[in-house]
């Protein structure tokens, strides 16, 4: 397997993009990544998208978007793993280049969620859970994470204030991200007084409904410097693990086993430990998710994830900043695009191009992208060579 580098990134401003269709949103981000990479063609492309069928009635995205790119009849592959679709699309692209199959590969993600009403969006998102034995009974995604939150609070004493601290931190980071959907600060009081969605989670504990796309270009590391003007960023590890789809099948309802497994494999591949991480971009679909993820990544001891944001350890300027981009919470969560946007943030940080949210001396970055209640997790580790 060859070493692979990311040499181009692209992303549009995320939000409710009423005037733009899915194909327009995607093409904007894809072309920006190709331009940023300094290449004039790609050999293959991958697109992560959870549910274009339910949201806009469109499947067959691999072909549609390859066509929109107008770079020839290249192989286009749609990848789906619920909210980890983007991260998994990136992994497929990595495998494509690492194996020697292709040299210049575009990894993208897109989701267009606002053409349907809130109820239909909730129903589409619920297809990431067990249709017959979870969603059938009327439990929503906030509901599943609400149950995980109650379990975590009961088992480990995690507090309401600790959940709020995650939202406060990520929104503060988001004010420094010009592409974020909600780049405004929130206070813990605002979070705790916002409307209840699924106890104990309130609306400000939840990532939003968003339209958006992101794209990155991968090439063999040895070709990178001849193609790009930016410092190339090496993919040091790629890992993917699954777990039972239904939350109730897990042994510990307050633990993310697939994240633990994927992270452990990734650290081994990269030859590092959590202590080496300069920052990470994780899947904060709900505030409780970030708390549980940093435990599974080994950044916080098991049961102690609640103190991460509360203590400042995971804030910009802290020991290991988590979600310097603003995370899903502030940046937005167009489902299939999230995993790719995480990669883009990691690349910008390691290039030294993150502007006001730059992590100092960034050397190693980790991205963690998760589907459902943790039924799939994709972890990548990046290095500034």
């Amino acid at each position, binding site marked *: 397997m060859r070493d692979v580098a990311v040499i181009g990134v692209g992303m549009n401003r995320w939000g409710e993009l009423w005037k733009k269709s899915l194909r327009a949103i995607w093409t904007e981000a894809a072309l920006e990544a190709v331009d940023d990479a300094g290449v004039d063609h790609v050999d293959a492309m991958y697109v992560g998208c959870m549910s274009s069928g339910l949201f806009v009635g469109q499947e067959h995205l691999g072909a549609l978007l390859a066509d929109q790119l107008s770079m020839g009849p290249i192989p286009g592959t749609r990848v789906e793993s619920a909210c980890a679709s983007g991260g998994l699309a990136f992994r497929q692209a990595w495998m494509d280049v690492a194996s020697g199959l292709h040299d210049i590969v575009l990894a993208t993600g897109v989701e267009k969620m606002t053409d349907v009403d809130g109820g239909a969006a909730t*129903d589409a998102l619920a297809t990431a859970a067990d249709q017959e034995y979870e969603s*059938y*009974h009327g*439990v929503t995604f906030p509901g599943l994470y609400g149950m995980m939150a109650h*379990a975590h609070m*009961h088992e480990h004493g995690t507090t309401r204030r600790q959940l709020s601290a995650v939202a406060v931190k990520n929104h503060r980071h988001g004010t420094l991200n010009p592409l974020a959907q909600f780049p405004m600060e929130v206070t813990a009081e605002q979070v705790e007084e916002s409307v209840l969605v699924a106890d104990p989670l309130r609306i400000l504990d939840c990532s939003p409904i968003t339209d958006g796309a992101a794209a990155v270009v991968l090439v063999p590391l040895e070709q990178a410097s001849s193609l790009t003007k930016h410092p190339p960023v090496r993919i040091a590890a790629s890992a993917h693990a699954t777990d039972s789809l239904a939350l109730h099948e897990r042994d510990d309802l307050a633990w993310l086993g697939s994240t633990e497994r994927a992270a452990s494999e990734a650290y081994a591949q990269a030859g590092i430990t959590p202590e080496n991480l300069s920052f990470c971009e994780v899947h904060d679909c709900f505030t409780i998710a970030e708390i549980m993820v940093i435990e599974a990544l080994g950044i916080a001891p098991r049961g102690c994830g609640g103190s991460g944001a509360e203590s400042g350890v995971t804030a910009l300027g802290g020991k290991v900043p988590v979600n310097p981009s603003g995370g899903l919470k502030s940046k937005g969560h167009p489902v299939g695009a999230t995993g790719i946007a995480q990669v883009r943030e990691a690349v910008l940080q390691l290039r030294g191009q993150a502007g006001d949210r730059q992590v100092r001396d960034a050397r190693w970055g980790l991205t963690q992208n998760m589907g459902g209640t943790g039924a799939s997790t994709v972890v990548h580790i990046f290095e500034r060579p």
Partner: protein
Amino acid sequence: MIGSARNWRETPQRYRYEAARCTGCGHVHFPPRTVCRKCRGREFEKTTLAREGTLETYTVIRVAPSGFTDQAPYAVGIVALPGGVKVTAQIVDGNPEELAIGDRVKLEFRRVRQDGAAGILCYGYKFVPVRGG
């Protein structure tokens, strides 16, 4: 929309709580599946779930999915039943805000959903609190 075939196929589980015990390692699967997730065995014997269990965790759904809007707010929980099985279902007949992890609950036959005003009725299981002695 659930539709006739999908709902009918699940009646052994929804109506009678039929599960499958792996003859290799004894793990009980609800619903039954083709391969045992513990030991990869493929031989199972039929069993049914116990009716009473303990609330492992719960939430109160306030923003409901389509078809459940009129029921909100309602509690959904994960219940641990004897035999090692955990089940997700609504917890009804009580104030959702008075639930606590560790509560004793039991299965009851209820109408879980319906396909609008003219479609089929989908019956299944919910949990109710066990009260008193």
